[in-house]
């Protein structure tokens, strides 16, 4: 507000807490930068001819469109809780809870799947490269993975219990380490060139670099980049972008939220996109794009010509043929920090979800108890840690993880529901819409920008939801897993309605939480 155009008297004011830059780092870490080095191999293998650096560049504008949708919607209702609040206010609190509960399960399932990434794809290869072969196989075991998971979840709980400041510092340390490692990776490969890599690879693996390409071509690999494969491979790269909007869940604590949300979301997409592009580009420049596609293809099709000591030729593993052992180990160590950071962010966000549900009385109020010294919700933290450990055991010793195979599809349903709520928002919550900042009310012709962005968000979600269920990506669509995915949503609804019935009995219906009081 201009000082000379509005009279303002001295009065107490509201100040928010999280800076745009802290928020951006949170978003980047939820996206797990350089996880793309794993996803890229799957994209290359499933869609032979996919141009990976191009997929990263294409994912940026797509993510920006969806990111703008979330940023604009967040500007209309800048409250912590994000789409949980938006959907609850515009559609129904039960639908809001259902979506948020699904995301809670998704985040803890992803955390559970990431722990083996650390033990089996980072720690074990480092030990193996250093010559500790027996120790390497021990740390890759299921038992050690579980012990590590328990210890790391407890470390996460300890960090989060020390308040938001400790979590922010931890995230910044992880972020810096990931970036340093990434710079080492990119600089090494960009200065190396495919010829030297080919010579190293052939000398150290017993496989012949050129023969890999030729064998793959004979087996059906196109040997060149194809547009359709690139567009399909884009789905994998975009999956790794998911999470760029995580700051909508902390909007109530962000400084200058309307501006900061744009910086945090769009900034995270651009930085993450450029990291992904540079990572792919450096990989292609250093190892050769055709070779990367060819070896991924051979590995994924189970071709006998693939004889590397690891099941899949993830880029961090191939990096060992580009550099010396010390640099390779250092890089793997920094790469693994991405995994640990992502798990920390998932625990942080799920703790917030539980805290918010408890506040809204959907689950017992005991779960919203806060430690006064650090203002951390310790009961929600204990609850989430216990659930995470139980799920981790289930992931490792039961086939439960396989039932989460369609979480991207489920996530897209959530995005569609959020987008629908945005389309109806100007009509269902006219009171909030009319007082929203100009950016929310901006129109192109007769249609509001928010509506246009919502429609685009639905189209993108439908495409990605479809792609994530396509036979190439998941094999034959399993109806049981599909039912399980919808079942997670249904479970959220069941929890909500049980709670609702309980509160009706004690006196105050939960449905009143977000109902607008008619002003006139």
């Amino acid at each position, binding site marked *: 507000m201009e000082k000379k*155009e509005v009279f303002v008297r001295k*009065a*107490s004011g509201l*100040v928010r807490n999280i800076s745009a830059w802290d928020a951006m780092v949170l978003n980047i870490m939820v996206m797990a930068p350089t996880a793309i080095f794993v996803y890229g191999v799957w994209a290359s293998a499933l869609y032979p001819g996919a141009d990976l650096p191009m997929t990263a560049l294409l994912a940026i504008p797509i993510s920006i469109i969806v990111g703008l949708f979330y940023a604009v919607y967040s500007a209309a209702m800048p409250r912590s809780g994000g789409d949980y609040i938006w959907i609850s206010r515009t559609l129904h609190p039960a639908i809001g809870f259902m979506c948020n509960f699904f995301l809670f399960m998704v985040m803890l399932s992803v955390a559970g799947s990431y722990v083996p990434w650390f033990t089996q794809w980072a720690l074990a290869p480092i030990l193996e490269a250093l010559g500790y072969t027996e120790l390497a196989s021990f740390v890759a075991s299921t038992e050690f993975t579980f012990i590590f998971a328990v210890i790391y979840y407890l470390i996460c709980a300890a960090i989060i219990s020390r308040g938001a400041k400790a979590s922010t510092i931890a995230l910044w340390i992880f972020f810096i380490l990931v970036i340093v490692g990434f710079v080492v990776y990119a600089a090494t490969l960009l200065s190396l060139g495919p010829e030297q890599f080919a010579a190293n690879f052939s000398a150290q693996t017993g496989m012949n670099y050129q023969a890999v390409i030729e064998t793959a071509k004979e087996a059906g690999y196109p040997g060149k980049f194809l547009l359709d494969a690139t567009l399909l491979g884009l789905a994998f790269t975009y999956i790794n972008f998911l999470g760029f909007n995580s700051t909508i869940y902390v909007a109530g604590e962000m400084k200058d939220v309307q501006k900061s949300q744009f910086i945090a979301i769009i900034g995270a997409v651009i930085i993450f996109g450029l990291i992904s592009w540079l990572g792919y580009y450096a990989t292609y420049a250093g190892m050769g794009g055709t070779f990367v596609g060819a070896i991924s293809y051979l590995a994924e099709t189970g071709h006998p010509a693939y004889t590397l000591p690891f099941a899949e030729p993830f880029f961090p593993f191939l990096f060992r043929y580009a550099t010396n052992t010390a640099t390779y180990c250092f890089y793997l160590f920094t790469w693994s920090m991405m995994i640990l950071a992502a798990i920390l962010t998932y625990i942080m966000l799920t703790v917030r979800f539980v805290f918010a549900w408890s506040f809204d009385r959907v689950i017992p109020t005991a779960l919203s108890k806060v430690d006064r010294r650090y203002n951390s919700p310790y009961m929600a933290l204990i609850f989430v840690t216990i659930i995470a450990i139980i799920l981790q055991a289930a992931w490792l010793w039961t086939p439960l993880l396989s039932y989460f195979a369609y979480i991207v599809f489920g996530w897209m349903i959530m995005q569609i529901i959020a987008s629908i709520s945005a389309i109806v928002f100007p009509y269902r919550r006219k009171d*909030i819409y009319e007082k929203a900042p100009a950016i929310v009310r901006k129109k192109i012709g007769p249609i509001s920008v928010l509506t246009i962005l919502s429609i685009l968000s639905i189209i993108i979600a439908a495409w990605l939801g479809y792609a994530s269920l396509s036979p190439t990506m998941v094999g034959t669509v399993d109806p049981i897993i599909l039912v399980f995915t919808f079942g997670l949503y249904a479970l959220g609804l069941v929890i909500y309605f049980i709670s609702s019935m309980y509160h009706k009995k004690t006196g105050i219906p939960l449905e009143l939480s977000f109902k607008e*009081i008619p*002003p006139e």
Partner: protein
Amino acid sequence: MAKMRIYFTTDIHGSEVCFKKFINAASFYKADIIILGGDITGKAIIPITEKADGTVQCRFLGENITVNKGKTLEELIQKIRNVGFYPYITSSAEVKELFSNEKKMSELFMNLSVKELSRWLEFTEKRLKGTKTKCFISPGNDDSQIIDRVLNSSECIINPNEKLVTIDGDIEMLSLGYSNITPWKCPRDITEEELYRKIDQLASAIKKPDKTIFNIHVPPYDSGIDLAPELDANMRPKLEPGGRVKMAPAGSKSVKDAIIKHQPLLGLHGHIHESKGFTKIGRTLCLNPGSEYQEGILRGALIQLSDGKIKDFLFVAG
């Protein structure tokens, strides 16, 4: 009364739509008693000036707005009122003068506060007259003393400030709109000692502490419902490494001591908008519903009492 439902809200800071929602909350939530816990008046005036072509203009929510007189002007005025500002139709010359004359500006604020509050009370009378709803509206630390006479003059509301009132049966309510000293030196900021003395004086007449409600604007110190950004000498938030704002408890130690001493049934607080929450101090449940008045959302708390005990409570955003 065996069963009683209370609706409590606070810190609407001039938002007309929030005030109307507060009054309508009685029928909407089927509340027997509705309580507005202070900080009622607005914080800013939007001057609306006439242009040579007969249209009027102002700057509102970051936009320069020009409208024709008549219906569109009325709509604009309503929008301004709904976010908690006072519309003021004036001339460019007067705007200039007001900016250079602090005393005149202050008088204008007082006059507009009284005028707008009087309009609100007319609305209240229309809605609540003839109903069984008991409506309590007390001032907060942000409100000038001038509004007390307006509140006291109304027949359909009760200003419980600095009183111990019986709200129903044997349920009593002690109300205070004061706060400990804030960095803004608001009209009802007083020292901790004065605050304690006022509470103690009122509390000495309490019949049954376990059936008493403390409707005290400022929350108890270090209770988790009183966290606010710590400010430096220039009123800017202090930052921690990484740009994070340093938060600190800003409630009142006197209020906390009084709650520990008297152990009332319920503590109803506001004052710190960003610190929505609940906490238990001994057997006392303390609530701060926070505030979202600028978005036109009325945050409140519903409390269900049964036989003088809290059966359930729920934060609502209406």
